[in-house]
């Protein structure tokens, strides 16, 4: 859920998806769900000479499971905050798995 919340903060920003079929697509993030399925607007396929297949698409939905990497806009990401949040989530999961009564109530 952490990364879903994280990506939600990037809605409206330009990102690039690198898919598991070696296609890279740049576009404006409009929506993201719990599976990290993504909706992009005004897309541009990188290396369009090699991949003209998707030229007739403007807005797309991409299944989260086929995404290999996501290029993020550097200035929009607070890396320190994200690192802190991932640590906290890991800690929480650890405590939960050990059955800490304090966290079970959360």
């Amino acid at each position, binding site marked *: 859920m952490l990364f879903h919340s994280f990506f939600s903060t990037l809605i409206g920003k330009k990102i690039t998806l690198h898919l598991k079929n*070696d296609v890279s697509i740049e576009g404006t993030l409009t929506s993201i769900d719990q599976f990290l399925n993504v909706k992009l607007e005004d897309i541009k396929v990188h290396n369009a*000479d090699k991949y003209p297949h998707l030229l*007739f698409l403007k807005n*797309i939905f991409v*299944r989260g*499971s086929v995404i290999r990497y996501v290029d993020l806009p550097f200035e929009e990401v607070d890396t320190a905050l994200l690192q802190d949040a991932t640590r906290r989530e890991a800690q929480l999961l650890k405590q939960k798995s050990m059955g800490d009564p304090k966290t079970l109530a959360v």
Partner: protein
Amino acid sequence: MTERVAVLTNDGRILIGILEGLDIKTNLLLKDTIEKVFSIDSEVENIELGLYIIRGDSITLLGPVDKELEDSIKWDEIRCQPIKPIVH
């Protein structure tokens, strides 16, 4: 719904059809489906497939076909390799 959509499948095929239905698993029902076949030594071929159900987990990407963009493309000049299949 009842809009023309293009679907890229995990095996790299491109299917275009009228979206008639979908469910929570993004299984799709397409009407009047055609497959666009790209190849390096001949022009883009359209193969008529008719009514098609596509299982959600084999879909890479989909989007509504932009008529303006579609008409602006010189399909008979395009020569390219098909898109590679998804490798997890």
